[in-house]
C-alpha cells in the first residue's frame, strides 16, 4: 500500500540572526522533517580583519586588539600574545606578575564556564540557571573591575608582566568569592546535572570519538570529555602552573552531557588553583623594564595556552622591527564548528542547538 510518498527536503537557514547561534554564525540546514540531513556553516559575518590590523600596529598596541579576538576570556588572549612576544625576547618576568597572571586567567576561565553553562541552559529551555550563573559571574567581574577597571576587555596582561597591581581589598574579596563558590556550583549541579530532562536532552548526543579529536584538533573540555587526557597547563607547561596541584577532569562519554560535566568540574579545579595562588603570592614589582618602542628579536614562534574553550595559540613572525610581520591567532571554536556537520547527521534541530552550546562555539575566534 505504501507507494513512495513524495517528501521534499526543506532547506532552512539558521541564519546569522538566531537566538541560539552564539554571535553571528549561519548554518544552512537541509532538513528531512525534523532530522538534519546536512549542515553547512557559513561564517565571516564577524570577520573584523584583526590579523591585518595587527600587522600595522606596534606590539603594545596589539594587546587591546587581541582582547577582541576572543572577548569572553580576554585575559587568556592578552596572555598568549604576551607569551609569544616574551619567547622572542630575553625578558625576565617577575614572580609576582606570573602569579597575578595565573589568578586572573583562572578567574576568567570560571567566568567563561559560567557563561557557557548559563547559555547552554538557556538554549535548552531552562531559563533560570542562566540567571544564577550570571549572578556569580558578576562577582568575578567586580574583581576584574577592581584591578583593571574593565568588565570584559581587560588589556591587563602586558608584555613583560601585568599593567597594575591588585588593590589591597582584592584578596579578601577573592577569598570571600572562593568560599561561597563551591556550594554555588553544587546549586547548579542540583538544578541541572541530575535533572532527567537535562540528561535526556544531552546524553548520547553529538558523540565525538578519540580519533575525531585528533583529526579535527578538538581541544579543551570538549576533548577531555572524549577521553583525551590532554591539558596544556600540565602537558606543555608555561608560567608557574607546575607549582599548583590540581586534577584534570577527564570523562569517557564524549557526548554533550560529559562536556557539560567536564566544564563544571573544571570550575572547581580552577577555584582550587586560585586559592593556592593567593596563598603563595610573593611580593616584588609587577613588570619587567620594557622600552616604549619595544623591539623583539627576529624570529618565528607558536605559543599556546589552555583557554576555557580549548587551545588558544598565536603564531608570531617578527623581523626585529617594532611591528609584527604576521600574527595568526588560532582559536579553539574554529575546529569545534568544523566538526559539527560531521556529528549532526541524522539528529534533530533541538540536538543541533544542544551540541552547538555544549561545544561552546563562539564566533569571534572563528572569524577573527
Amino acid at each position, binding site marked *: 500500500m505504501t507507494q513512495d510518498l513524495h517528501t521534499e527536503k526543506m532547506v532552512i537557514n539558521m541564519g546569522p540572526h538566531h537566538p541560539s547561534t552564539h554571535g553571528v554564525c549561519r548554518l544552512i540546514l537541509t532538513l528531512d522533517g525534523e532530522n538534519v540531513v546536512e549542515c553547512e556553516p*557559513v*561564517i*565571516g559575518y564577524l*570577520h573584523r*580583519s584583526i*590579523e*591585518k590590523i595587527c600587522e*600595522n*600596529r606596534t606590539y603594545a598596541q596589539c594587546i587591546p586588539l587581541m582582547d577582541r579576538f576572543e572577548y569572553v576570556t580576554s585575559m587568556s588572549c592578552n596572555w598568549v600574545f604576551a607569551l609569544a612576544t616574551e*619567547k622572542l625576547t630575553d625578558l625576565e618576568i617577575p614572580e609576582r606578575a606570573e602569579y597575578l597572571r595565573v589568578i586572573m586567567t583562572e578567574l576568567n576561565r570560571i567566568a567563561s564556564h559560567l557563561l557557557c553553562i548559563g547559555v547552554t541552559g538557556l538554549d535548552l529551555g531552562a531559563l533560570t540557571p542562566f540567571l544564577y550563573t550570571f549572578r556569580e559571574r558578576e562577582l568575578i567581574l567586580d574583581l576584574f573591575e577592581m584591578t583593571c577597571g574593565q568588565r570584559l576587555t581587560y588589556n591587563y596582561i602586558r608584555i613583560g608582566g601585568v599593567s597594575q597591581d591588585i588593590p589591597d581589598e582584592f584578596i579578601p574579596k577573592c577569598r570571600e568569592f572562593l568560599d561561597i563558590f563551591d556550594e554555588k556550583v553544587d546549586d547548579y549541579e542540583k538544578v541541572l546535572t541530575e535533572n532527567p530532562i537535562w540528561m535526556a536532552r544531552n546524553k548520547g548526543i553529538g558523540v565525538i570519538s578519540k580519533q*575525531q*579529536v*585528533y*583529526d*579535527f*584538533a578538538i581541544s579543551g573540555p570538549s576533548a577531555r570529555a572524549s577521553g*583525551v587526557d*590532554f591539558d596544556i597547563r600540565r*602537558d*606543555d607547561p608555561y608560567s608557574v602552573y607546575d607549582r599548583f596541584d590540581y586534577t584534570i577532569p577527564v570523562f569517557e562519554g564524549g557526548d554533550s552531557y560529559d562536556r557539560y560535566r567536564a566544564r563544571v568540574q573544571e570550575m572547581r579545579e580552577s577555584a582550587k588553583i586560585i586559592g593556592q595562588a593567593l596563598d603563595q603570592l610573593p611580593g616584588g614589582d609587577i613588570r619587567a623594564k620594557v622600552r616604549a618602542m619595544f623591539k623583539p628579536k627576529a*624570529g*618565528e*614562534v*607558536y605559543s*599556546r595556552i589552555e583557554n576555557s574553550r580549548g*587551545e588558544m*595559540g598565536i*603564531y608570531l*613572525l617578527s*623581523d626585529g622591527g617594532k611591528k609584527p*610581520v*604576521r600574527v*595568526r591567532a*588560532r582559536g579553539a571554536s*574554529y*575546529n569545534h564548528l*568544523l566538526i559539527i556537520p560531521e556529528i549532526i547527521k541524522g539528529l534533530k534541530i533541538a540536538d543541533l542547538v544542544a551540541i552547538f552550546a555544549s561545544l561552546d562555539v563562539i564566533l569571534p575566534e572563528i*572569524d577573527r
Partner: protein
Amino acid sequence: MNPAELTAYITSNFSGQLETVENDQAEPYFIVPLSDLVPFSKFIHDDPQLELNYLMNMAGVDTGEQFEVVLNPCSLVNMQRLFFKVVLDRGDPKFDTVSNLWAAANWYEREIWELYGFEITGHPNLKRFLLPDDWDDGFPLRKGWVGKNVIPLPEK
C-alpha cells in the same frame, strides 16, 4: 624525546632532503621542499615513534619577498611538537592539500586560499567563506595590498 633527539630521529629516518633551522624555541624547526610536503606530513603523521596526529596551526605568511606556509603539528599521545615550513615560489604559489591527513587542515587551507590566493591542489571544497560573497578586491592579507574601503592609520 627532547627536541635534539627528535630532530636527529626525523633527519635520519626521513628519505627526502630537509633543512633544519637553528632557533632557541623548544621544538625542532624544518624547512621542507614543496614537493616533499605531503610525504613528510604522511611520515610524521603515521610514524609510530612520532605520531604527530594533532595539527595545532597552519598559517599562510607573506614576508614581503617570499610566500610561505607554516604548519605546527603536535602529538597528544607522546606530547611532542614540531614546527615546519614550506616556501612557495612568488609567481605561482601552489601547494598540495594535507586535509586528508589532518581533517583540521580543511578550513585552514580554505582560509589561506581565500585571504592569500595560494592555489591548493586536491582540496575537497574550495569556497569563499570569510569574505563577503561579492568580494572582488584581491587577496587582503598580502603585503602591499590596499583595499578600496581601508582607511590607513594616519602617521603622527
